């Protein structure tokens, strides 16, 4: 009889450690993914089965997604969301970049105070100023029932985006800017020709955050558009969808999937851009 060769104690504990870590990893992965799985499975059930404790659909009703898609209004909510998130993101980037550039690279009195004010604005709950803002948009400009009260302010710089862009621009060495200035570029040209290409990863990150913010926003559309369903966004419409189909959990879950899916898709595409951007800045030193 030959005894199995005793493995060195170090290797054995390393193996046990590996197993323990990965078992925990799988458990955590289940916690994070099972909710998605249950939502998708329920979205494919019949309305009767969705009210039972079953986990797997008896008949896979892919038609549920068509039913949701054909719900009156659903397409309009999509269009509104894309307008709010798309146009809002463009306006935010265009208006925030010069501000962030000035706060990062210009020397002037009151710069630190300005940065502190930006941080304060960033931390301010939107509810603090909503009463005067609502009165301003609704009573003075008569724009309630539209998304403009949410989109127009983005043309005037968003505090979070300014802050994040400034942090990013601080990492660009001044020598690049000085070189451009010596070549006779004005500040605007320096910003567009030198800073903009180098800041692309930072801009991508800000655009992504802003897009998600608008996509997810519930409070804004609730305040300004609740009276006019034609101006609702997906995040706001989704809840009323639940109200109108209060026993059809299958349809509600299908609508939930349709609201979640684009965000997750955008993340997967943008993740690659992020990694590329980070590598690019890395090689540029």
């Amino acid at each position, binding site marked *: 009889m030959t005894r199995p060769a005793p493995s060195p104690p170090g290797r054995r504990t390393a193996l046990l450690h*590996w197993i323990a*870590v990965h078992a925990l990893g799988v458990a*955590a*992965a289940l916690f*994070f993914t099972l*909710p*998605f799985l*249950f*939502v998708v499975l*329920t979205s494919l059930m019949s309305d009767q089965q969705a*009210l*039972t*404790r079953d986990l797997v659909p008896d008949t896979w009703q892919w038609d549920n997604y068509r039913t949701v898609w054909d719900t009156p209004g659903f397409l309009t909510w999509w269009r509104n969301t894309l307008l709010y998130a798309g146009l809002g993101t463009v306006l935010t980037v265009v*208006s925030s970049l*010069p501000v962030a*550039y000035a*706060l990062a690279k*210009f020397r*002037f009195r009151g710069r630190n105070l300005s940065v502190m004010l930006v*941080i304060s*604005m960033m*931390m301010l*709950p939107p*509810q*603090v*100023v909503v*009463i*005067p*803002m609502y*009165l*301003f948009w609704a009573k003075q400009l008569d724009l309630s029932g539209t998304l403009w009260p949410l989109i127009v*302010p983005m043309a*005037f710089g968003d505090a979070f985006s*300014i802050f994040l862009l400034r*942090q990013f621009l601080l990492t660009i060495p001044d020598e690049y800017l000085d070189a451009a200035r010596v070549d006779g570029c004005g*500040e605007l040209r320096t910003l567009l020709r030198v800073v903009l290409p180098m800041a692309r990863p930072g801009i991508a990150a800000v655009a992504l955050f802003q897009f*998600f913010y608008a996509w*997810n926003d*519930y*409070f804004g559309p*609730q*305040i300004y558009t*609740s*009276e006019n*369903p034609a101006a609702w966004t997906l*995040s706001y*419409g*989704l*809840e*009323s969808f*639940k*109200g*109108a189909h*209060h026993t059809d*959990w299958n349809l*509600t879950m299908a609508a*939930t999937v349709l*609201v*979640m899916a684009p965000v*997750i898709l955008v993340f997967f595409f943008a993740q690659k851009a992020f990694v590329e951007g980070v590598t690019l800045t890395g090689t540029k030193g």
Partner: protein
Amino acid sequence: MPTHTLRAKHRTSTLRTLAFLSPWLVGFGVFFAYPLVSTLYFSLMRYDGFGVPEFRGAGNWTYVFQDYPMFWPALRNTLWLVLVMVTCRVVFGLGIGLLVTRIKTATGVFRTLFYLPYLAPPVAATLAFVFLLNPGTGPVNSALEGLGLPAPGWFTDAAWSKPALTALALWGVGDLMVIFMAALLDVPKEQYEAAALDGASPWQRFRFVTLPAISPIILFAVVTGVIQTMQYYTQPLVAGKVASGVIGGSGQQFEPGYPDKSTLTLPQLVHNLGFQRFDYGAACVVALVLFALSMAFTALLMRSRGGLIQAGDR
């Protein structure tokens, strides 16, 4: 160089700075400074959106603090959420961050899976959790009963609605995971090796090497967590609405806080007072309380500015 050209140069650079800052200067005035002053003004007025505001003095303040039945429950809920939800999120986020730095196989897959729930739109995620935690038919309670454990009422039980919201918040812990992961990878390896040579146990290495190194990030996570709690609006409101089975989308009739005021938070009061009761004056009082609390914690955050800058850099 003669002084007058120097002065001219200074003037152009001031003009240039103002030009670059102009979008934000307008935004600061119109969307921050003006409405803040206006909120202060309305907090002293009686105004329902029609007619002329009428001076009411401290009346709105005494109404909110003494007679408005939702103020103190909302403040108590906020305190609960700060103590329990923020703590749980920071501890869990650190745990997941530690775990993910130790996983050596399929690291990218694990990271992405752990991060994804953070991206789920809040309304969609809340709907999903109200369904998953449905006391009668939800899979969570089926599993609990299958294991012979008690099955709570979650979003329909005043004692369990905040723990249910905490579960939802833990599901979306991806933001903290990323921050902690970056901080943990920044701890110099030599310090661990030195500690291991000195015979330190894994717990001692964590306690005396990891924790001191990442403590600024923990402070950052706690303070931003508190600030986020001040803004906590969509999840508790939607959870209450959906769990109560209220029908119709515009929601003007829904009294927030279901069940039994247990999901009320301060931002919901601004909406309830302003847009359901049309008492703009009292709504502005709550807005100012919210402002004072947020700014107090923001000041705390800026005192530990290092953490803020680092985390903004990620």
